[in-house]
C-alpha cells in the first residue's frame, strides 16, 4: 500500500521544514514541500498529492489562488489552511472551495492539531 502524499506550502522556510519533519516522523505520509504556489503546482504536475497544507500569504500567487488552481487541475484532493493572518474568519472564497472552519489553522498552531485533522481528512477522503 502506497503512503498518502502531503504537500506543505509555506514561504517561511523554518515553518515549512519543522512541519515537514514533524509529519515525516510518523511514517504515515510522503511529505514534500514548496515555497511558492508556482513551485507547488510544478511539483504536483509530476505527481499529485492527497492533501496540501497551504499558507495564505505567499510570494506570487496567493494560497487561495493555488487551491483553486490545484483543484481545477485535479492535482490535489484536500486542503488545509495554515496562516499567520489576523482575519480569523474563513473567507467566502475558501468556503466555496469546500473548506470549513475546522480546516483553518492560525499560527502559532500546534502541529499536533494539524496532524489530527490531516488524519481525519485522509481517512474520510480515502474511503
Amino acid at each position, binding site marked *: 500500500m502506497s503512503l498518502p502524499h502531503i504537500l506543505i506550502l509555506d514561504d*517561511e522556510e523554518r*515553518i515549512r521544514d519543522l512541519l515537514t519533519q514533524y509529519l515525516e*516522523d510518523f511514517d504515515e505520509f510522503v511529505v514534500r514541500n514548496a515555497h511558492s504556489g508556482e513551485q507547488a503546482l510544478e511539483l504536483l504536475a509530476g505527481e499529485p498529492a492527497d492533501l496540501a497544507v497551504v499558507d495564505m500569504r505567499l510570494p506570487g500567487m496567493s494560497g487561495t489562488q493555488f487551491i483553486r488552481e490545484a483543484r481545477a487541475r485535479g492535482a490535489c484532493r484536500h486542503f488545509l489552511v495554515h496562516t499567520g493572518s489576523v482575519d480569523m474568519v474563513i473567507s467566502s472564497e475558501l468556503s466555496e472551495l469546500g473548506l470549513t472552519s475546522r480546516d483553518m489553522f492560525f499560527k502559532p498552531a500546534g502541529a499536533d492539531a494539524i496532524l489530527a485533522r490531516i488524519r481525519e481528512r485522509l481517512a474520510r477522503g480515502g474511503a
Partner: protein
Amino acid sequence: MTWSAKLLSGLSLNRHLAPVLTVVFAGVLVSTLVAYFSTRATMAGLALGQARQTLGFLNREIGTRVSQLASRLELWSQEELYALALEDSFLGESARTEAARRMAARVAGSSFDRVFLVRPNGEIVTASNPDMMGRFTVGDRGYFQKALAGKVNMETLAAGRHSNVPMLVIAAPVRTGDGVLAGVIAVAMETARFAGDLPLGAGSSQTAAGYLLDTAGRILAAPPGIETDHPWHDWRMDQVRQSATSGEAARYREGETGRVLMAVANAETGWYLVLSADEDELLRPASRMAWLTGGVSLATLALVALTLAALGRAMAVMRQSEEKFSRIFMHSPDTIILADMETGRIVDVNETFTKRTGYSREEVLGKTSAEFQIYVELKDREEFHARLRRDGHVEHFECPARYKDGSIAICALSGQVVIIDNRRHLMTMVRDITETKRMQEMMVQTEKMISVGGIAAGIAHEINNPLGIVLQASQNLVQRTRPDFRKNLEAAEKIGLDMGLLDQYMKARKLDVFIEDIQSAASRASAIIRHMLDFSRRSESRRTVCDIRAIADSALDLASNDYDLKKSYDFKKIEIARDYDTSLPDIGCTATEIEQVLLNVFRNAAQAMAQADPPVAAPRIAVRIRDLPDRVRIEIEDNGPGVPEAIRKRIFEPFFTTKQPGVGTGLGLSVSYFIVTKGHGGRMAIETGRDGGAVFCIELPKDQRLEV
C-alpha cells in the same frame, strides 16, 4: 383661537384679575354709551338745526315774495284804468281793452299766471288771458269777498276754476277816484310754479325733500319727481302741526323706514313748509361719529384688558418660575449651596448636598465653606470666589472636595450671583464628576488600545510566524526526544545513544519543563496579540438573534474545558448555580463575542478564587439572567475575596492585572468591557456581592438591530 377667545382665556388665567376687569369694563362701557349718545344727540341737533335754518330761509323767502306781490297788487289797484275798466260804460269798454293789454304785459315775465278784474257781482270783466272772461264767476270765493270788504288778502285754492291745480290768489279792492269801491283786482299763480325756484330738493341727499302743504295737507309744491296729487295723511299732518308748533323734529314711519320731518307754518300764506328725510340718512353722520367715539373707548378698554391680562400672566409665570426654582433647588441631582455674598455664610443647601457630602443642614447653615473644610485646597475656594466677584458667574470650575467621611471627590463647580431679598447671594452648583472622570480616563485608555490594536493588526502576521516557529520547534523537540518513536530509536542506535537514558536525563534536568515553558510563552504571546486584535476588529461580525441562556451555558462549558485554566484551577470543582428568568427574550448580539466576554469573566472569577488566601472552601459561581424592561441583565457572582475599592476602579483598564505574572494578559476584562459597551451599546460594571464576593453585571439592550 379667535381674538376674543384669546382674551377670555387670558382673563380666566387669573382669577384675581376678573373683578378688576369687570369694573373697568363696566366703566368703559358706561363712558362709551354716554359718548355714543351725547355725540349722536349733538350731531342730530346739528343736523336738525341745519334743517331749521333751511326752513327759516324758505319761510322768509315765501313771506317776502307774497308780501311783494301783495304790495305790487295794491299799487296796481290804485291805477285809474282799472276802476274805469270796471264801469259799465263805453269809456269802460275801451278801458277794459287797455286794462287787458296792460295786465297781459304784466303777467309776461312775472311769477304769476293771471291777473283779472272782477265786478262786485263776481263777474270777471277783463283778464290777462281773455279765455277767463264769461266762463265762471268768483263771487263765492273768500279772497273776493274779503277784497270787497276792503282788504288786500290772499287765498290758497285747492283747485283753480280755470286751471284746476292748486293756486294762490291775491286780491285787492279797486276804487274810483272818489273812493267808491268799484270791484276787485286779483292775481293768481300756480303754487307749484310759485315755489318752483325754491330749494325744496334739500341738499344732495336722495331721500330728503321739502314740501309746501296747505292747512289740509294738500301738497302745494314738491321737488320734481314726487307725486303731488294726493294729500298727506291726517296722522302725518298731526306730526307736521306738532313740529310747526313746537319747533322740534317729529318722527314717523313710512313703510319700513323711519323718517323725520320738521315743519314751520308760514304766517303770510298759512302754508306748512315741511322738510322730511330718512332718519338714518339724516343721522348717519351722527351715528358714524358716535360709533367712532364708542369704538375708541372700546379699543381703549380692550387695550387696558389686554395689558392687565398680560400683566397677570407675567405675574403667574413669575410665581411659577419661583416655585420651579425652589423645586429645582431642592430636588436637583446636583448639590446646590446658597451663601451670603458678603459674609460667605451658608443660608441654604439642598437635599442632594446632605445626601452626597454626609453633612446635615444644621451642621452647615450659618457656617462658611472654609469652616467645615469641604475644600481640599483653600486656594481653590479663593480662586472660585475671586472669579465670581470678577465675572459675576463661573462655569465648570474643577477642584477636589472632601466629604464628611473623608473621601475625596472631583467636583465641577458653577457659581452665579443672585439677588434674594435685596441681598447678594452666591449660588454654587456642585456636580460630582469623580465617576465621569474615571470612565473618561478608562475610555481614553480603551481608545489607546484600539489604536494599539490597529498597529497589532499590521504586525500580527509578522509576529505570528516566528511564534509559529517557536511553538513548532518546541513540539518537534518533544517529539524527537520521545523514546517510543521508530525514527528516534534508529538515529540513536546509529550513534550508540540510549533513548531511555536520554528521557531520564531530560526529566532529571527538567528539560521537558523548559520546553513546556517555551510552548506556553509562545501561546501567551499569541493570546495577547489576539486580544489586542479584538479591540481593533471592525464590528463586521454579524449580530444575530441569540438566546442568552444558551450563550451562558456554552461559555460555562468552554470554561470547564479551558486548557489554560486547568493548569491553575479546575473549573469543574466550582459549583455553578444557574438562575435564569423563565421568560427571557432573544436579544440581538454577536454570540461569539458575548461568549468570549462571559468566558473572560468566568476565568477571572475562577482565578481570583484560586489565588485567594486563605483558599475558598466551597468555590461557587452564581449566574443570574434577568429580564428588565429594556434590557437583559447578566450577573456573575463569585464567593471569592471580592475586589478592593482601589482595584475596582481600575479593573477594566487595559493591561491592569492583579494576577501573577504569566497568568493573565491584563486585557481580558478590558476587551470584555469594550465589547459590551462599544460593540453592543450595553453596560458593564463590577459590584460587591452580599457575601463580599465580586459581582460582574452586564446589561445588554433589547433593541439591537438584527441581521437575520
